[in-house]
């Protein structure tokens, strides 16, 4: 439909930065905001813009100009038929799949993807190391965000790629957060979908099941930007940020965000940029 805000947003030279509504995406978006701002580029922060199904349409109709994305999920959203799973393949494919007038910049080495985790006790009791081993467990329950039930990398993939059956799916819409963890530890669920950069995996010695079939695609952090706003200067700044951003950084940032201090995304971004010499 015709959007009344379209013309207005495009005409302005401010870059509006959005993000998914979970903390890690917000932290990265804040890093973009502050890095650009430090170089005198006009930016506006609208982080926490709902799920991809909200913020990508918001991006393409001009309400947002820039969002941090996860390469694999972005590709499967933009092109549901895509088959690429390797990191480079995906980035190549994304260049084509990006909506008209939008482009992806350099991916960061940092990666955060869905991962299936079980408690050490459960792993030991059932002899689990890979996802395929789950076939030995009759009728297990799996907790994840609601979309996991329908995405290719989710239940459908587990059934078709790994031939698992009888999965009892429990919807826990906190992105592998505290409720998912609590459910797993209390035994309410057997398997938990937790993003790989979530500190609770390490803190609780959870066993992350390997994914030999590469069902879960690579998920490098990658900026998706409105080409009109992607001046060389902007690209350079964002590419520099991406080059510095590692999986360890994400783990560390998330740990501070979810730890006892509950440090806010804004503050974490500032701290990261300072550490890396951007500020």
């Amino acid at each position, binding site marked *: *439909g*015709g*959007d*009344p*805000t379209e013309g207005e947003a495009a005409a302005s030279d401010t870059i509006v930065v*959005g993000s998914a*509504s*979970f*903390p890690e995406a*917000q932290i990265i978006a804040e890093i973009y905001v502050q890095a650009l701002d430090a170089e005198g580029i006009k930016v506006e922060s*609208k982080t*926490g*813009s*709902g799920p991809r199904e*909200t*913020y990508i*349409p*918001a991006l393409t*109709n001009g*309400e*947002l100009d820039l969002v941090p994305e996860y390469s694999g999920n972005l590709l499967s959203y933009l092109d549901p038929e895509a088959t690429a799973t390797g990191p480079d393949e995906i980035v190549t494919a994304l260049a084509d799949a990006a909506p008209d007038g939008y482009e992806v910049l350099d991916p960061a080495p940092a990666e955060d993807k869905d991962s299936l985790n079980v408690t050490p006790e459960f792993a030991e009791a059932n002899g689990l190391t890979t996802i395929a081993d789950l076939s030995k467990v009759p009728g297990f329950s799996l907790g994840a965000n609601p979309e996991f039930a329908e995405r290719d990398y989710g239940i459908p993939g587990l059934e078709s790629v790994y031939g698992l059956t009888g999965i009892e799916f429990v919807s826990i819409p*906190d*992105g592998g*957060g*505290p*409720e998912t963890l609590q459910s797993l530890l209390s035994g309410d669920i057997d398997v938990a979908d937790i993003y790989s950069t979530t500190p609770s995996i390490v803190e609780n010695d959870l066993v992350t099941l390997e994914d030999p079939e590469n069902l879960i695609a690579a998920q490098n952090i990658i900026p998706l930007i409105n080409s009109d706003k992607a001046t060389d200067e902007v690209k350079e700044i964002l590419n520099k940020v991406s080059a510095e951003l590692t999986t360890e950084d994400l783990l560390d940032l998330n740990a501070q*965000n*979810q730890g006892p*201090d*509950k*440090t*806010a995304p*804004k*503050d974490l971004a500032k701290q990261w940029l300072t550490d890396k010499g951007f500020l």
Partner: protein
Amino acid sequence: MRWIGNNTDLILGYLASHVWLSIVPTVLGFLLALPIGWWANRVPAVRGVVLSVGNVLYTIPSLAFILILPGVIGTGFLDPLNIVIALTVYAVAVMARFASDGFASVSPAVLDSARASGFGAAGLALRVELPLAGPVLLAGLRVVSVSTVSLVSVGALAGVDNLGRLFTEGVFTGNTAEILTGIVLVVALALVLDLLLVIAGRALLPWSAGARRVRGGVA
């Protein structure tokens, strides 16, 4: 509680937009409901329609309403306007019923007497009916304002800044303090607005304190 100290700017920002997102639909809903309620009180058929449409509107789940609006009326996906429109619709749905009841509560004897004194149609509506419906209108406005304040938080699920953000974000980080802060502030905001309405009512309707007795006496 350290979390609150570290994040006062964030919280105050959410609070400020929560205030706006609450007040605008409440005021708009009130103003729109007045003529509708007045008309509904005049024409029984209209009253029936207003009440049933109000019922239907009010049962639309708020989340769905806010999310579907952009697709239906072409607003932006992140536009706070979605919340404003959705909550205004709820406000009108509730307020129109109160407005109709309010105008109905005006004693026919008083209206008759005003007509007999020589009030014209407009004078009657604005200078007699409207002020006399005041107490019921105020009661309705109080209900609408409280429920609007509480409903605004649902907008956080659609990516709009307000105190509801403290719930959605608090869940991801297991931050009980954050969620509690949100709840307390929402309730406090609702109570403060309610208090303001009560004070405004006292100032604008000084006669209403014992007016019920008058009607009781006449009936």
